[in-house]
């Protein structure tokens, strides 16, 4: 099969088959989990079909037209890296969904559970095979959303809701930053297509020299860090443990959290080899690795321990991808990629073991456990293999990749020279020490020693084979890769590394590679790890007292205070902005009018008072205008409504005199009649309300209002004086047309009426619609009264 068809099917089949899942559920009832694992297996097969050609031939890309107006194609980029991720995602998917058949009670909403798992798997596959960043981002956010849904699977529990919210805000919010980073990348390169960028070294050179390089890198890194729970963004992952354990194993250890690492690996050729990359990616990775390692060591919840451990392990990978210098931009790439694969195997296995333990003992508190090796022998063996691999004990796969980690840490330290030659390897060892310590704690706390508490159920027994085989298979993988790394290296690590480095990479891994500095570091790690583990109580006491003293030094505290505080702050902000009475709203409208009206005067400049004003007026007209103003003032100052209404209607009648003076008989007639109706309506209303209202005008209110009024007066006056300077040729008014054509074309002598009913008939139509609406509206208003009573 053509690799593209295989990949497209692998990506979209889960979506389609998830869509018909409710229908299938009706047929197979409780066995729906096997349907889902079948789908995952199908995807695994399809990815495997596509793999050989890519492993042999390198990266291939193909696209279908999608949104040409944005220059976006639906395109898929297949190389070793994406194939490796594809296999991890679908492979772990098969394991998880099979395991879920035992884990999830049939009383649960299985349809929703498997549907979301499949959607997640499809999105994840879509993401790793996407060639253009927008498409990648869409799938990326889909994984965030499905993860959100799955964390909140038990949606009526408040902790689930809390965890889901946190994960969504951090990952999807970080995603928005990442999107912006992609957009900056597009501005630099002119393409959204990552394949195009990767295949053209000149574009990469352009990017590295561009002003927007650093913003783009930082923004993309924020997205990746948020997804992979690095640095300050780690906070969501521990709370995500509210999800069902298979979900945690699948999303929050093996696949989704690696999306950020994937992205870092994907953009590695574009950004690496710069100081910024080393400082940001490497520094972030090392800090996260050490800090999260310490925090993991301190956890008492087994899933919490694994969650922090995941953060720390992701820090390893981040740090290794960050190891870069100008000459050697990809020192840690091979080791990071190998560790990525190994981590997927042992961590998923550990989660599944934790799931079994929690399932059987009905608790997740490690302090209540101990001595379970007797009741759960198989689980103990499987769990120990995985945990020892995580601790870096030979001959398991974790040992191999940790050795490589130490080696590359030494290498980068030496290349950088100075204090880094010591600091970076030291930090690496410190991370390793914590890893060793919490791995031991996992085994010792759960399975060894003796029962510390009698709260556990009486009869603890091994779960069904359905739950044992999947972690068992993973444990087997851990051993096989550890003993015979060459197969994994040849078929996965080398192609993936080549995909990242864009050149043929040779990776050499073997179980024994001589007594060298890395091995010394490993031995140091084991000794220090045991030492720390035995001092657990002292360290715990110190940390508890520290936490008690400094409750505010915590990112969770910051998050909680923002999220919880937002509501109150925002309420008071809204109450301040929106006080209720209409006056401030009117004031802001008028002030905006005044301010905007003044801006052109400042920016463009012009005469406020145009020249050529004439003030000649005959005495009757002057009296008329004065009377209008006087009656308006009267309406404003009269206390009793009846007088104010009479004043305003007097004004209306005077206005009709103005209309007569302006040679507008129709207007004058209308104005007189309308004014009469106005007055009647006014009177109808004011007889039903109190006859007067005494507003106490304070001086400041009066001054402010007068100021606004006079500003409106000035603005309108200046506008009018300027506007009414008359039309100059060639802008003769269209009125000429009406005068010339009223009689010949419209057969009417009253031009105003002709304009109303003929020339501008649709205005009049709109206007009578308004009258109808007024009638209907008043009807509604009056009839609404009975509703409220």
């Amino acid at each position: 099969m053509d690799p593209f068809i295989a990949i497209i099917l692998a990506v979209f089949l889960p979506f389609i088959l998830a869509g018909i899942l409710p229908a299938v559920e009706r047929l197979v009832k409780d066995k729906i989990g096997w349907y889902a694992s079948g789908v995952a297996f199908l995807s695994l097969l399809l990815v495997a079909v596509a793999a050989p050609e890519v492993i042999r031939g390198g990266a291939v890309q193909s696209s279908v037209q999608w949104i040409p107006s944005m220059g976006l194609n639906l395109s898929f980029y297949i190389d070793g890296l994406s194939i490796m991720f594809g296999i991890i995602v679908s492979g772990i998917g098969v394991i998880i969904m099979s395991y879920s058949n035992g884990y999830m009670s049939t009383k649960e909403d299985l349809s929703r559970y498997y549907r979301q798992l499949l959607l997640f798997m499809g999105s994840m596959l879509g993401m790793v095979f996407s060639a253009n960043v927008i498409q990648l981002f869409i799938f990326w956010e889909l994984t965030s959303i499905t993860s959100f849904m799955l964390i909140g699977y038990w949606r009526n529990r408040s902790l689930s809701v809390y965890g889901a919210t946190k994960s969504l805000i951090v990952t999807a919010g970080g995603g928005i930053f990442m999107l912006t980073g992609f957009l900056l990348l597009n501005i630099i390169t002119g393409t959204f297509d990552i394949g195009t960028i990767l295949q053209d070294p000149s574009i990469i050179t352009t990017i590295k020299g561009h002003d927007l390089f650093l913003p783009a890198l930082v923004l993309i890194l924020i997205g990746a860090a948020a997804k992979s729970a690095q640095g300050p963004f780690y906070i969501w992952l521990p709370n995500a443990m509210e999800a069902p354990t298979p979900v945690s194993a699948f999303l929050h250890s093996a696949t989704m959290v690696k999306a950020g690492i994937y992205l870092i690996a994907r953009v590695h050729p574009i950004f690496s080899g710069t100081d910024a990359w080393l400082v940001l990616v490497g520094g972030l990775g090392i800090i996260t690795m050490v800090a999260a390692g310490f925090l993991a060591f301190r956890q008492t919840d087994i899933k919490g321990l694994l969650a922090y451990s995941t953060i720390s392990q992701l820090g390893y990978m981040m740090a290794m991808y960050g190891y870069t210098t100008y000459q050697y931009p990809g020192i840690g790439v091979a080791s990071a990629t190998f560790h990525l694969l190994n981590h997927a195997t042992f961590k998923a296995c550990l989660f599944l073991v934790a799931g079994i333990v929690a399932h059987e003992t009905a608790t997740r508190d490690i302090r209540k456990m101990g001595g379970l090796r007797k009741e759960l022998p198989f689980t103990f063996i499987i769990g120990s293999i995985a945990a020892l691999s995580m601790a870096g004990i030979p001959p398991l796969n974790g040992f191999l990749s940790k050795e490589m980690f130490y080696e590359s840490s030494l290498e980068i330290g030496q290349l950088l020279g100075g204090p880094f030659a010591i600091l970076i390897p030291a930090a690496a060892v410190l991370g390793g020490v914590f890893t060793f310590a919490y791995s031991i704690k996992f085994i010792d706390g759960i399975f060894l020693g003796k029962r510390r508490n009698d709260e556990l159920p009486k009869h603890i027994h091994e779960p069904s084979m359905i739950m044992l085989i999947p972690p068992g298979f993973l444990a087997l993988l851990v051993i096989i890769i550890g003993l015979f790394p060459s197969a994994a290296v040849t078929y996965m690590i080398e192609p993936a590394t080549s995909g990242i480095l864009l050149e043929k990479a040779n990776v050499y891994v073997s179980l024994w590679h001589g007594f060298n500095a890395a091995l010394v570091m490993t031995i140091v790690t084991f000794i220090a790890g045991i030492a720390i583990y035995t001092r657990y109580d002292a360290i715990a006491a110190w940390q508890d007292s520290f936490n008690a003293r400094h409750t505010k030094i915590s990112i969770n505290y910051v998050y909680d205070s923002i999220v919880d505080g937002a509501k109150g702050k925002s309420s008071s902000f809204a109450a301040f902005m929106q006080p209720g009475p209409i006056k401030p709203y009117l004031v802001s409208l008028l002030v905006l009018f005044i301010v905007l009206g003044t801006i052109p005067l400042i920016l463009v400049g012009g005469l406020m008072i145009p020249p050529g004003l004439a003030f000649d007026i005959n005495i009757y007209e002057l009296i008329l205008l004065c009377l209008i103003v006087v009656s308006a003032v009267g309406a404003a100052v009269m206390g009793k409504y009846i007088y104010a209404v009479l004043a305003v209607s007097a004004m209306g009648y005077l206005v009709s005199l103005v209309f007569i003076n302006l040679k507008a008989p129709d207007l004058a007639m209308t104005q007189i009649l309308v004014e009469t109706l106005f007055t009647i309506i006014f009177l109808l209303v004011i007889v039903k309300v109190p006859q007067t209202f005494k507003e106490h005008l304070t001086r400041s209110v009066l001054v402010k209002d007068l100021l606004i009024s006079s500003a409106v007066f000035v603005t309108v006056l200046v506008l009018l004086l300027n506007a009414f300077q008359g039309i100059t040729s060639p802008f003769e008014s269209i009125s000429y047309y009406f005068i010339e054509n009223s009689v010949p074309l419209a057969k009417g002598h009253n031009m105003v009426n002709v304009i109303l009913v003929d020339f501008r008939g649709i205005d009049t139509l709109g206007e009578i619609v308004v009258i109808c609406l007024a009638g209907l509206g008043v009807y509604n208003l009056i009839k609404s009264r009975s509703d409220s009573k």
Partner: protein
Amino acid sequence: MILSMQHVPVILIALPIIFGSLTILFRSKSTLQKTLNIAVFSFLLALSIALLLHVWYNGILVYEVGEWGKYGILLVADLLGAGMVVLSSLISLMAMIYATDYMDRKALDSTFFPLFNLMVAGLNGIFLTGDIFNLFVFFEVLVLSSCGLIVLTGRGDHTKMADKLEAIFKYLVLNMVSIILMLVSIASLYATVGTLNMADIAVKVGYLADAGELPWHIHVIAMTFIVVFGYKAAMFPLHFWLADVHPSAPAPIHAMLSGMVIKVGIYGILRVHYLIFSESMFMLQPILIILSLVTIAVGATSAIGQYDLKRLLAYSSVSQIGYVLLGVGMGTAYALTAAIVYLVNHAIAKSMLFLTTGETLYHAGTKDMRKMGGYAGSAPFLCIIFLIGSMSIAGLPPAGGFFAKLLIFDAGLSAQFYIPIAIALIFAIFTLFYLFRTWLTIFWGEVKYCDPTEACNIRNPTTSIKVALSLLAGVVIFIGVYPEPLIALSSVIAGQLLDPQPYITAVLERSVR
């Protein structure tokens, strides 16, 4: 004859008016009216789509009402106008389908249908008219019809009548003041250039500008129009009415108001400012960008603290309108494309969200979010639709809002508006936060409240409500998955806005008898 394509613009206005008056005459037969109204609105949607296709293939369609050329009133269906008509027809059809089951029997029997029909006539009139005074007339039609409709009640409408009246009072008073400003500007414009046809005004203003004689008060007029349209669009600091008025309306009207009616302001700016006042753009753009950023910030910040679901979404509308205005303000072809895509998406997604909210409130029996919770089990359909709407507004794929936000950001960054985009970005996360928290509060968490007298599961959407919501959700997802037609259309519209010459030529090359 009547059925020729050329007459469609006027039919889009006249048909709802005729039907509105018929529904007044036969208003007590509401069962018959439901069917008839849905039929008529579907017909209008079909007509508007036909009009859009016609304009797309044959260029701008100009209709002379009364055959008086530019001396009478011209209806101009360019892509922007026709596109807006399609949008408004779509949303009003869905709102109508929804309303037939949602509104109170009393409202359906009395004035709901005529008011709604006339409102649609007003919307179509605004989008199609080529005359600036006619625009004012249709604005008034829109305002009065919305006032009348807000008073009516529906089944999930927990607003007190006192609140409704207070909201309408504020709306009407502010509106009358802004309309007075509009009349002042129209009169000043007429006094300056002696014509009312927008294309004609544009030509004459352009002529003045070319001759270097552009009077400075033209800029003042442009600014005043910003106040008028900004008021319609609820731009800061003119947004105060929105949070009071929109939540007071029953759900279908709320959807129309937030979906279409506030877009009228944006349409006004796109039409009037880009056509007539292109000379003033250098002043307007910074103002629009600053005000739009404040609008985004104020809307989003105020939304977070709300407990009243409808009020929260109303503030969200304020914030979202800010994004559209940001695109309009940035003013490049790409930014205008983005603004139009955003507008369309927000119109559809927000109206869907409001319609869903109406049903959710009915289901909950309260509008206080603190009393809701855990409805995912009892109202799964609403849960999904609400989620799709929230995703779209928050800009998450695969909903349509994603591409809208993407385009806005991309346009802003390409035009090097880094700081405005940074601000917009921060508030995009606010949006995500408050929308999802709302969704979580309502649908997840402990099952908090069910009306003790009626079981929650009885108070679930009826078929027609489900149909309306599913169709809208389908459109939202379609835009999210395959936005090409919308983006292509929007970019052509943006091109036409920036180069109005074809519009002017089409309008003015009329034979006058």
